């Protein structure tokens, strides 16, 4: 009996230790999160500044070859998955990222040849009714990171972390006649006011983050006419909310495609910002658009295309007519 008791004590001594250490570690992590959150509430903007990455940290982060990784990720996910692996593989993905397969047009995992197809799955037509009573609706599934009035030509990626509207959308496509040698410098304030076309209006913005499990197609949020497409090649840094809180101007670093035009209240734009996993962007109205290409790019360089000059049945001379709720583009893996 004495050896049995000794064995019991020996097991009691060692088994709880890893659990205790693990539990203590989780508590410590949680304490850190709570402390940061409380600091944000108490110290406000100062705390936000403290939690932002320093310039050297951002530069170091940008050295990581996310563009190459993204293309590699895309290639891997374009490979046809053997039939027997599809259900366990996509099932794991669906569980990890909370995909609701009941909403998918094709519920059978085996019908998706690769993860790319699964990622871009379509939804059943009745699972996302478009609000018929309101003019402006959400263009996608996701989480609202931030929204509000644009103040002093600054957008906010998350609360308190601002970035330049002028850099985000780029210069206005119409260069005034008095521009010297085609160069035209405009202040932030003038740029801001140049976007407002009507009396009694303001500029507003809204940032919606799409998590890996979300439906990754986007639709027109209102009835509007798209006049112009601008493609900014760029980095493919992660855009998850944690990084958005850490790297100021994240969306200005990243590859993005901006469609600008007009709706009943004046200026309207929709910008799709790429990320590491989701490096390429497609707009149905622009078949020439190619994103996440190999090779280097120069920061600040962008490629424009007028959508007024297209000659297709669905496109009139004023641009591309976008109808509220209709699909206008997709994000692709890699």
């Amino acid at each position, binding site marked *: 009996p004495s050896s049995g008791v000794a064995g019991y004590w020996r097991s009691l001594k060692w088994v709880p230790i890893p659990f205790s250490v693990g539990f203590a570690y989780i508590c410590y992590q949680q304490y850190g999160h709570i402390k940061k959150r409380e600091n944000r509430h108490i110290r406000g903007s100062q705390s936000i500044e403290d939690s932002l990455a320093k310039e050297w940290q951002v530069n170091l982060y940008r050295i990581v070859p996310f563009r190459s990784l993204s293309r590699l990720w895309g290639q891997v996910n374009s490979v046809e998955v053997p039939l027997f692996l599809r259900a366990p593989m996509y099932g794991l993905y669906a569980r990890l990222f909370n995909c609701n397969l009941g909403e998918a047009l094709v519920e059978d995992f085996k019908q998706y040849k690769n993860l790319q197809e699964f990622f871009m799955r379509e*939804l059943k037509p009745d699972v*996302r*009714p*478009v*609000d018929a*009573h*309101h*003019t*402006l*609706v*959400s*263009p*996608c*599934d*996701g*989480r*609202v*990171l*931030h*929204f*509000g009035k644009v103040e002093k030509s600054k*957008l906010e990626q998350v*609360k308190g972390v601002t970035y330049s*509207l002028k850099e*985000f959308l780029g210069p206005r496509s119409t260069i005034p006649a008095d521009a010297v040698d085609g160069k035209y410098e405009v202040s932030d304030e003038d740029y801001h006011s140049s*976007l*407002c*076309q009507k009396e*009694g*209006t*303001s*500029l*507003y*913005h*809204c*940032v*919606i*983050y*799409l998590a890996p499990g979300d*439906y*990754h197609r*986007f*639709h027109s949020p209102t009835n509007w006419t798209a006049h112009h497409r601008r493609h900014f090649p760029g980095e493919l840094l992660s*855009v998850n909310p944690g990084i958005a809180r850490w790297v100021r101007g994240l*969306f200005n670093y990243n590859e993005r495609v901006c469609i600008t035009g007009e*709706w009943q*209240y*004046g*200026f*309207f*734009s*929709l*910008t*799709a*910002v*790429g*990320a590491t*996993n989701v490096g390429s*962007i497609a707009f149905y109205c622009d078949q020439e658009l190619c994103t996440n290409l190999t090779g280097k790019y120069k920061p600040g360089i962008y490629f424009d295309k007028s959508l007024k000059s297209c000659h297709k049945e669905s496109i009139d001379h004023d641009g591309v007519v976008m109808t509220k*709720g209709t699909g206008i583009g997709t994000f692709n893996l890699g």
Partner: protein
Amino acid sequence: STIVLVFEAPKDFEFVFNSGDKIRLGERLGSL
């Protein structure tokens, strides 16, 4: 991936959700 909308609207435009809220395609964004 992220979608950013920048648009002009009347001064009394109001968004109808909070930061951090989940939103679905087709749900209203604001009131005009």
